C-alpha cells in the first residue's frame, strides 16, 4: 500500500503539487491521468523519492520514501522515466543486468544471473540480448528498459508515460506484459504509471488517480472514477464513455473541431 500524506511542492513560486493525500492499494495497475501540466510526472518523481517535497510524506509499505537510504529505496520501487536523450552503448543483457544492481552492488551472484536470464526470456529479448540498446528500434528499446525495471524485483514499478512514443503494436505489447506481471506474481508486484492514453487506462488500470492543477481531484477503482462526467470536467472537453460490443470506449462528443 502507498500512503501519500499532505504532499505539497512549490517551484519558483508556483505550486506544482497541492496538498495531495491518497491511499493506493497494492496489486494491480494504477494510472495517473490528467491534462498537460497537471503535475503527473512531478508527482511520480516525488513518490519515487527523486524530488523532495516541501511538506508531506510518501509511505510505501509503511516506509517513508524520502527518509529511506538510496539503496533501500531501490529495493522498494523501480523507475522508468521518459525516454532518455543519450542512450548508453550497453548491450540489452548488460542493461537488464544493471536492474539487479541494488541487490548485488557490483557482485552478481547465481540468483542475479538466473533472474536476468528469466527476465530476458519473459520479455522476448533473448535474440537481441547481445545487441546494443542504441541500435534497437524505439519499441524494442522501451521493452528493454521495462525489462530492466522488472529485473529490479521491487514491489512497485513506477513508469512515466511508458507508451508516449510507441505505435499501437508496441503499446499493446508493453501493456500486455505489465498486466501479466501484476497478475502472475501473486499480487506481489504493482505498477504505477502516468498515462496519456485514456483508452488504455480504462481497459487496463485497476485504480485511477485524477490530477488537475496539482491537486488529486479523484482517486479510486477505474470503473467508478472514469465516467463521462468526471473525464469531461477533468479535461475541459466533452468526453463520453460508451460501449462497443461490450467493451468500454472513450469518444469525444461534439468536439469543437467538427
Amino acid at each position, binding site marked *: 500500500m502507498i500512503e501519500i500524506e499532505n504532499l505539497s511542492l512549490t517551484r519558483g513560486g508556483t505550486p506544482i503539487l497541492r496538498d495531495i493525500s491518497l491511499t493506493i492499494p497494492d496489486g494491480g495497475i494504477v494510472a495517473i491521468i490528467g491534462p498537460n501540466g497537471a503535475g503527473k510526472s512531478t508527482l511520480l518523481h516525488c513518490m519515487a523519492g527523486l524530488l523532495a517535497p516541501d511538506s508531506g510524506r510518501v509511505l510505501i509499505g509503511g516506509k517513508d520514501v524520502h527518509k529511506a537510504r538510496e539503496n533501500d529505496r531501490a529495493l522498494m520501487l523501480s*523507475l522508468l522515466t521518459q525516454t*532518455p536523450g543519450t542512450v548508453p552503448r550497453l548491450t540489452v543483457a548488460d542493461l537488464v543486468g544493471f536492474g539487479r544492481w541494488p541487490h548485488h552492488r557490483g557482485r552478481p551472484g547465481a540468483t542475479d544471473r538466473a533472474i536476468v536470464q528469466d527476465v530476458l526470456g519473459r520479455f522476448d529479448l533473448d535474440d537481441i540480448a547481445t545487441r546494443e540498446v542504441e541500435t534497437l528500434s524505439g519499441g524494442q528499446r522501451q521493452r528493454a528498459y521495462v525489462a530492466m525495471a522488472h529485473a529490479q524485483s521491487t514491489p512497485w514499478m513506477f513508469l512515466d508515460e511508458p507508451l508516449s512514443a510507441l505505435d499501437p503494436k508496441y503499446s499493446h505489447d508493453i501493456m500486455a506484459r505489465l498486466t501479466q506481471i501484476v497478475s502472475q506474481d501473486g499480487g506481489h508486484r504493482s505498477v504505477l504509471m502516468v498515462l496519456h492514453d485514456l483508452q488504455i487506462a480504462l481497459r487496463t488500470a485497476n485504480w485511477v488517480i485524477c490530477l488537475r492543477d496539482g491537486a488529486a481531484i479523484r482517486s479510486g477503482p477505474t470503473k467508478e472514477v472514469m465516467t463521462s462526467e468526471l473525464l469531461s470536467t477533468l479535461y475541459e472537453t466533452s468526453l463520453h464513455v460508451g460501449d462497443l460490443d461490450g467493451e468500454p470506449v472513450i469518444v469525444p462528443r461534439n468536439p469543437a473541431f467538427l
Partner: protein
Amino acid sequence: MALAGLALLAGASLCIGATNLWNTDLDSGLVLAVSRIPRTCAAILAGAGLALAGVVVQQAVRNRLVEPGLTGTPEAAMIGLLGVTLIAPGAALLVKMSVAAISALLGTAGFFLLSRHVPPRDPMLLPLVGLIYGGILGAVALWLAWITDLVQFIGIWQTGEFSGVLQGRYELLWLIAVMAGALYLLADRITLLGLGEDYARSLGLNYHQTVLLGLGIVAICVAVVVVTVGSMPFVGLVVPNIVSRIWGDNLRQNLWLVALLGAGFVLGSDLIGRIVRWPYEIPAATIFAVIGAAIFLWLLNAPRKTVAHG
C-alpha cells in the same frame, strides 16, 4: 594484441633518443635508468591517466564530446599551482601537487554544476560552454602569472612533453596507477552515471557521492599530469570515443582498454616527436594534437557499425 603493441612501443621508446645506446663510450645502463625508463613510464602513465579522466567526465556529464581539457580542469590546476608557488614557493612537490588537485577538483565541479543548466538537446553546446569556461579560468591563470612574472610556467604546464622527464622528477605520475585501480573498483558506478541521474539514483546509487569521487579521480590524474609533464588536449576525448565506439560503454569490461590505448597513443606521439627532427624534439602534445584532430574528425563523421558483442 593491444598489450603487445604497447610493449613494442615501450621497447622502441627505450632504444630511441638523442644518444645512441650502443655507443661504447656511454654507460647505457645509466642512460636507461635515469632517462629512458622514466620517460617511457611517464608517457604510459600520463596517457592512461588522461584517457581514464576523459571517460569519467564523459559519463558524468553524459556527453561524448567533452574531455578534461574542456572542463576547466587543467586551467584550475594551474591557478592552484600559481597560488601555492606565490604563497609558499619552497613547498614540497607533493604539497604543490595536492593544492593543484584540490583546485582542479573545484574547477571541474564548477563545470559539472554548469553542465546541469545546459540543455542536453544539442550535444555540441556543452563542449562549447566548456571551452569558454576553460578559457575564462585560463585567462585568470595567465593574468595571475603576468602580474607575478611567472608566465614561463604557464607555457611549461600548457604543453605536454617528456624531454624533461628524469629519474626523481616524474614519480608523482605513479599516483595515476593508484587512481586507475580505484577507478576499476568504481567501474560499474561510473557506467551507471552514464544512464543519467534518475536511473542511477533509482538503482540505488549514491549519485552525488559517486560524481564527487569520479571527479576527484579526474582532478588528481589531470593535476599530476599538468605538474609533471604539462597538459595534453585530445587524449581524453579521442581515446574514450574510440573504445566506446568499438567495444561499448560497459566500463568494467573496457576500462583497461581505455587506459592501454591512452598510454599507447601518448607514448607513440612522444616517439614520433623524438624521431621526426632527430636529434631535436617536438612536444608529444603537438604531435598528438595533429593525430587526435584527424581521428576526431573521423569519429564525428564515420557512421558507426551496429556491432553485436557479448
